[in-house]
């Protein structure tokens, strides 16, 4: 290779390196600005409680099944995190409800409940509010999740039995080198366990539920 060719080859190689470095840096910057999706996942133990001798249908509507919370970047107003918890919420209720009631039947709608003659009640959980506390925003060294549920209990013909609000709270300490995904997931799992604990131990004590259980000789 002649001196001139060597010089040109060196410039091209250097130029290629610089271009690649700039491309990598720009890609990294852009990916840092992109929305991050966090899919909550976890395993939940079955509650250790005595079952109520009831057959209950449960309806998970689309809003509950596909529940998704969007955390906004305070500075830019853009979406920062999308937290999908629907699947894990269903997993939790599918673990918890069979431990509380003798029989649990999954229903598509209140109308389909009428086809079951042995149903004692229909249970409809709904998420009213979902909040996330991130360390970089709250200036605390914990990840926090707070969820507000609306629980409805109805007879198989749709008649009202009870309608009450439950809240769940979970926090997880921020650890060195821990990702936001893991911190949020851990806090969410604590919150879901909190819900399961208060539901299983408090269900029979809801005044309207208690009255109904006594009328059904289930207590």
């Amino acid at each position: 290779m002649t001196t001139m060719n060597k010089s040109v080859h060196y410039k091209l190689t250097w130029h290629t390196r610089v271009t690649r470095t700039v491309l990598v840096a720009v890609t990294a910057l852009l990916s840092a600005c992109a929305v991050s999706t966090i899919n909550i996942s976890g395993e939940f133990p079955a509650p250790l409680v005595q079952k109520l001798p009831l057959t209950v249908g449960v309806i998970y509507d689309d809003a509950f099944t596909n529940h998704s919370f969007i955390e906004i970047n305070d500075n830019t107003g853009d979406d920062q995190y999308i937290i999908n918890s629907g699947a894990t919420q269903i997993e939790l209720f599918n673990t918890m409800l069979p431990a509380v009631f003798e029989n649990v039947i999954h229903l598509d709608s209140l109308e389909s409940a009428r086809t079951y003659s042995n149903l004692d009640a229909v249970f409809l959980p709904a998420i009213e509010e979902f909040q996330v506390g991130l360390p970089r925003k709250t200036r605390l060294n914990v990840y926090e999740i707070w969820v507000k549920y609306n629980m409805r209990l109805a007879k198989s013909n749709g008649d009202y039995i009870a309608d009450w609000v439950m809240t769940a709270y979970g926090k997880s300490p921020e650890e060195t080198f821990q990702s936001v995904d893991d911190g949020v997931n851990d806090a969410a799992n604590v919150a879901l366990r909190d819900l399961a604990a208060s539901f299983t131990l408090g269900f029979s004590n809801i005044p309207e539920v208690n009255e109904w259980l006594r009328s059904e000789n289930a207590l």
Partner: protein
Amino acid sequence: MNTQQLLSLTKSLFFATPAFLLLCSCTTTEIDEFRQSATEINQGESIVILGRRQNNNYETEEDFVSCVGGVVARGQNSISVVEEREFLDAMFPFFEPRTAPMRTGHLEQLMAIDVAAERIKEFGIAYIVWVDGITERSDQSGSISCTIGPGGGGCFGFGTWSDDSNFEAEIWDMNTLTTVGSISTDSNGQSYMPAVVIPIPLIARVEANACNGLGSQLKQFINGT
């Protein structure tokens, strides 16, 4: 000062500084025990060590609870320890932050529930130990700067901080459903991080010392020695 002299000085500092500071980055640990009743543990019995997580400002770390359990479960006169997570899952929902018994009076109510009493009996739990506390960092000062260039890189500077571990263990007897005693540990130490080309961490193992101290004292307490 020429380059060779500077290099020689850097080498001296590199070796002398850690040796000097090693003598200084030590930990002091104080352990107090308060016994209310006699204790003993028989063959086939076990204990469970749980962290208190009701406080809004902090929660007792799982790693620390696991560390204390490890100390109690090994060595001479070791005691069988049920893993915290295994116990919490098996006893769910009775020992969650919202539902856990806060006093031995609540424990009586829990043991009145047949399924809960049966599960605790299956584990052979003779004592429940509640650990509550936190390690806090303070007095941070100094700074370290690191640079990298075509010829190489390095860090220069000095940082120091103080750690204070404060934990208390309360022991509940599952036969009498009473508190039989408590052990508190207070451990603090100063850590240093000089950086001469590379950072040299001289970390005071405050939490590790608190764990070892609490675990050893707990083992002696439950064995009745």
